[in-house]
């Protein structure tokens, strides 16, 4: 009798607990940590918005961490979220080296690790990487600029505003520009003039002014990120070189990113081409991959996914502008 009573009491305790536990497991939301280097440009803002909103739509808890362009801070943030036992990590790294270091930590902890847009500098850590083919889209944009230059029937003087050389994207964009230069050897008056910006508007302003003072004949300018166009305008306008395509004083102008400013400048005819990264596609690629990995219980998934991107030019503007994220944002703002 005593045994039966004990069994009954035990059953009364265990059964509800078992039900509660299974109900908890079904309800438990998975947590993804998202650490981003900063929100300095429209591209990063759009990427951040796409990732956070999609994660929430898919029912994840999201822990957001802004590294404020500080590599050490980003590393500490990731260590902290690993200690909290998150189910997945997505980062926009400060630089390619940091992406590898953080990747190794995530691998050791057995947490799936995704990298958005700025790729690790090596494949030493296993990661789900979504990145634009920066070299290809830069080469396409610069290639269209070269076609525009050929129409002038003379040689032109090329220059490039180079980004931070610690950023693999900046390096790839520079390489894409140089590919286009190499593909048209007879078009140039000399070797391209390389102007450092360190991704800083004030540095870009000062160095572009110096470059134009030293080489007043620059008439072919490739800008490694669209966020620098206001700077380019403020330097070219006082020199009478901020003119629309077709004008005698027009500097053939190209960029990379595909932001709102670039969309407007293309529409107005000041810009000849920009290499477009598909921010929404890249966000989807990394989110799909990490969702799949987390739900499948994979610890160190690895996949590099390339966003082919495209070049939006004066030639295809009407046909393809709706595919560019900056034009979509511009249209939303208009509404």
């Amino acid at each position, binding site marked *: 009798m005593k045994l039966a009573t004990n069994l009954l009491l035990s059953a009364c305790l265990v059964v509800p607990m078992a039900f509660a536990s299974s109900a908890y497991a079904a309800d438990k939301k998975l947590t993804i940590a998202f650490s981003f280097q900063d929100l300095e440009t429209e591209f990063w803002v759009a990427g951040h918005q796409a990732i956070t909103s999609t994660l929430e739509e898919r029912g994840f808890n999201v822990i957001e961490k802004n590294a404020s362009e500080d590599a050490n801070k980003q590393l500490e943030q990731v260590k902290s979220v690993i200690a909290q036992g998150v189910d997945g990590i997505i980062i926009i790294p400060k630089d390619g080296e940091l992406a590898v270091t953080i990747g190794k930590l995530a691998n050791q902890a057995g947490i799936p690790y995704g990298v958005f847009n700025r790729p690790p500098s090596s494949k030493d850590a296993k990661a789900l990487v979504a990145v634009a083919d920066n070299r290809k889209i830069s080469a396409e944009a610069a290639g269209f600029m070269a076609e525009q230059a050929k129409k002038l029937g003379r040689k032109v003087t090329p220059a490039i505003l180079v980004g931070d050389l610690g950023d693999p994207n900046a390096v790839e964009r520079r390489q894409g520009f140089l590919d286009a230069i190499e593909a048209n050897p007879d078009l140039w008056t000399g070797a391209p003039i390389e102007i450092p910006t360190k991704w800083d508007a*004030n540095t870009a302003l000062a*160095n572009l002014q110096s470059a134009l003072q030293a080489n007043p004949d620059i008439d072919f300018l490739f800008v490694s990120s669209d966020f620098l166009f206001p700077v380019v305008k403020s330097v070219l306008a006082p020199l009478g070189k901020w003119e629309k395509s077709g004008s005698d004083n027009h500097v053939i102008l190209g960029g990379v990113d595909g932001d709102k400013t670039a969309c407007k400048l293309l529409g107005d005819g000041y810009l000849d081409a920009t290499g477009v990264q598909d921010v929404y596609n890249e966000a989807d690629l990394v989110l799909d991959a990490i969702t799949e990995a987390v739900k499948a219980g994979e610890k160190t998934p690895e996949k590099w996914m390339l966003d082919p991107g495209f070049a939006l030019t004066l030639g295809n503007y009407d046909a393809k502008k709706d595919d560019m994220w900056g034009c979509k944002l511009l249209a939303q703002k208009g509404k």
Partner: protein
Amino acid sequence: MNTLQVWVVRTLLKNTTIILFLLLFVGFGLLAPNFLSLRNLEIIISNASYIGIIAVGMTFVLLTGGIDLSVGSVMYVSAVVVGLLIENYDFSIAAALMVGFLAGLAFGLFNAVVITLLGIPPFIATLVTMIAGRGVGLLLTRSAAVDFPDELTMLSAVRVFGIQLNIFIFALVVLAATVFLMLTASGRRLYAVGNDPEAARKAGINATALIAMTYVISGGCAALAGFVSISQLGRVNAGFGMGDEFDAIAAAVLGGASLFGGVGTAFPGTVLGTIMIQMVQAGLVFIRVDLYIQPIVMGGIIFFAVFLDSFRRVQLKKLERRNIMRLSDS
């Protein structure tokens, strides 16, 4: 050494910063002849002006043995305030600039209170303001870029007495700072406080008020620098002003200011330091040095300049010591 030799050596040692400045200017000119043009010099000073204005404010702080890490963030917040007031609240440019300037002063005042009344070390206090200030700017903008109207950006093309407006503002700031430091009792007291705060207090100087004032000046200068910069750029991104505090400190130190207080001048010291950094940056672009080598050359030149400054101080002290002996002998 005879008297003439001593005079020559002393003159050379006292003017090493100017000599180095001229050597660099002529050196870059020999490598790229159009570097020597007046127009190029104007561009260099114009581009140096906003950092120069911050560096002048920083010189005040350094004179007291303090440091202000918040200037980049204050510059950002002030610029954001101006932009948002114009864009969202239909403020006139003048009124918005005034409010932005007051915001800069308010941040400076906050630093001053925290450092002088609460006794928190300047490095920590201004580090906190740097982080919180950037946070305020990001909160106000939600990280979006702030664009400024053409009326404001056209100010960069305005000339006053034939001088570009941003250079004119820089010159005014330098003039005011130099007059204050060299010709007023408060200026001289500031050096005394920097050299020995305790001795200055015993001599009846209100060191607390003077130290507090330097942080307010630094905040005001940062806000002003922000306006100069936005008039050239036309847009403020979330990274605006980030790291500028280090450029300002480098410019002031290159111009002879001591990180331990009591030594430094707005003119010629900080002005030369600021322009020299900008000149080297422009020179490297002119002579088209490989992008990967540029930071190394830049670092090398700054190191050499600071080393030269340290060397000359030691030599000057030695020379002065010998003179005292000679006078006593005679």
